[in-house]
């Protein structure tokens, strides 16, 4: 009698692959959001597996706030080139230049929220009908209630009170022209699962995920990196620390954590011991209020 136990990583992988194949079969123009962050790196690996030995049958898209870590952009471009997969870059700067959105002002201005408009414009421009996002249900209370196939109306809005029931592994892909479906193939993965899988599959990540020396300053209880896009407030001081990033977003609101972890294995040990959620520790954008994520999602955010 052979061992028929399926490990949690294999079960999660199988579920994600199933979801990606459903999308490739049922939609005309899917696209995979690829920021170069670890969750999108995971999605990309799963997409490779789902269609091997064929190429991934949809393009990648990066919503570029213009406030990037250069290591992440290098990684993004290199991965797309290695896979031979087309990459669409939707630029928030262009949306600002064209007057579609207005830049926030003040020292704590961020372009995070502006991304929704750029994303929706790009979806419309390219006629995408399914958009893969790397959102996970363990990240936030609003995300915990989102479907794997999450319907968006022709304004790109999410209606959390009127979601389609989702049963078994039967996903309802039906939509009218102009509407689209956000698809979250890694909904059921936790931060720990993601890191365990990254280690097991030896998935390459941008170097900023691992410990390095960096000039940082403290703001709102977080360590922010010194970049060209932020100005120090009078009471803020620069210091050089050994840090790593737990998420990769807009450089103006993505915080680092002090850590000596230089490998996925070391990070897994830190995650296991961590007492603060990934978003709580490192994303200023979610700290606004209890419903910050829900409000942004309704507007069309990832």
């Amino acid at each position, binding site marked *: 009698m052979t061992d028929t136990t*399926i490990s*949690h990583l294999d079960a999660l992988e199988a579920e994600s692959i199933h979801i990606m194949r459903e999308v490739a*079969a049922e939609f005309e123009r899917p696209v995979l959001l690829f920021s170069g962050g670890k969750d999108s790196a995971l999605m990309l690996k799963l997409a490779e597996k789902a269609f091997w030995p064929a190429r991934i049958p949809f393009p990648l898209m990066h919503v570029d706030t213009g406030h990037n870590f250069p290591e992440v952009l290098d990684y993004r471009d290199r991965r797309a080139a290695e896979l031979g997969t087309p990459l669409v870059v939707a630029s928030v700067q262009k949306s600002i230049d064209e007057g579609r959105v207005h830049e926030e002002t003040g020292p704590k201005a961020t372009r995070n929220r502006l991304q929704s408009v750029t994303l929706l414009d790009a979806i419309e421009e390219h006629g995408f009908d399914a958009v893969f996002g790397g959102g996970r249900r363990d990240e936030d209370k609003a995300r915990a209630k989102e479907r794997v196939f999450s319907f968006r109306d022709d304004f790109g809005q999410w209606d959390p009170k009127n979601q389609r*029931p989702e049963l078994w592994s*039967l996903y309802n892909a039906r939509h009218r022209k102009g509407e689209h479906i956000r698809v979250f193939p890694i909904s059921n993965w936790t931060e720990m699962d993601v890191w365990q899988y990254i280690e097991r599959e030896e998935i390459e990540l941008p170097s900023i995920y691992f410990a390095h020396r960096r000039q940082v300053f403290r703001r709102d209880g977080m360590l922010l990196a010194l970049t060209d896009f932020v100005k120090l407030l009078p009471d803020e001081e620069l210091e050089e620390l050994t840090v790593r990033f737990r998420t990769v977003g807009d450089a103006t609101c993505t915080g680092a954590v002090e850590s000596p972890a230089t490998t996925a294995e070391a990070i897994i040990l830190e995650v296991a011991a961590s007492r603060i959620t990934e978003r709580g520790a490192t994303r200023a954008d979610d700290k606004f209020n209890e419903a910050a994520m829900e409000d942004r999602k309704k507007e069309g955010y990832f």
Partner: protein
Amino acid sequence: MEMLRFATAGSVDDGKSTLIGRLLLDSKQIFEDQLESVERTSREKGFDYTNLALLTDGLRAEREQGITIDVAYRYFATPRRKFIIADTPGHVQYTRNMVTGASTADLALILVDARHGVVEQSRRHSVIASLLSVRHLVLCVNKMDLVDYDQLVFDRISEEFREWAGKLDITDLTFIPVSALHGVNVTSHSPNMGWYDGPTLLHHLEHVYIGSDRNLIDARMPVQFVIRPMSDAYHDYRGYAGTVAGGTFRPGDEVLVLPSGLTTTIAGIDLYGEELSEAMPPQSVTLRLADDIDISRGDMICRPNNAPRATQEIEAMVCWFSERPMTVGGKYAIKHTTRSARALVRDLHYRMDVNSLSRDETSPTLTLNEMGRVSLRITTPLFVDEYRRNRTTGSFILIDEGTNETVGAGMILDT
């Protein structure tokens, strides 16, 4: 590490959110910032204690109304298992939410208040778990602290429920007395209930045997996607990608393909460059076949001597999710495995009252949150098994072709 999915049912009054909060807290899955946020909100709202329900009520409308609207998914892990909780609310849209949560669950956790015993809602949830073929059911008798941890109370409730549950299709029934508020028998025992020598809830969740719940006998793989790389390196490659829905497949196995009825053998099983010696549920793989036969999405790969029924007539228990009722003569889009078609409702034999299990044979419609036995005629053959035998090849959803909403879910019966 194995994964266990379980659905919890009950209302805020039963202490369900407190119990989940306790499981997460005691297994160290609640993070400091989440707890801080809940403590702050509880203070602002003037509660005397930290309301752990706030951890799970995610949407603004839910917090405003103090009720849980939608199924929420929660995650925790111990060194033995990873758990996915489908937390289904008790009040609003109860059937729809419970059915959704139970559809993927290995185990159902039902809470009753020790002071009130088994109430209508506990019975309703148990019936739904049974209809959805959730094999393991745990009845947690909560708030034991409010009945002085009295063994007689627990025994009486357990006995009453066991007797009633005889009518259900549940293979494994477990009773655990707990106090979620004080953490008794959730993750550790307490001297307050020295008379209880069974497992704690967490211990049970970690050890309950689910290995034989999957169907490893009837080989089934609905074809999801045909992989043809059209590249120089893999010029002639043709693979049939899908998720194994039952049984096992091995290279060399003779297989039957439906609807063509042609047979061939498995040349290889691929997963990203790795050749597998075996594939079983719930693996997502790609099968290569020895002969070049015409196969497309929606076809079924099975074994010549063990095939699902190919039929355009289906008998099923259907749960209805829409305010627009299901009527005899109604037409809907149907999705079954990877096959899409249209379905006509030919007959509604009866509507089932999930509280009394009684049948109403006079009802002309199924409305929101109702269930009934239905006959459907399908525009094209589907390859089906009885739902009790296979949850994947035995289930389907119905979609309103006008609004594109998912309006019903069906479990196929043997005929």
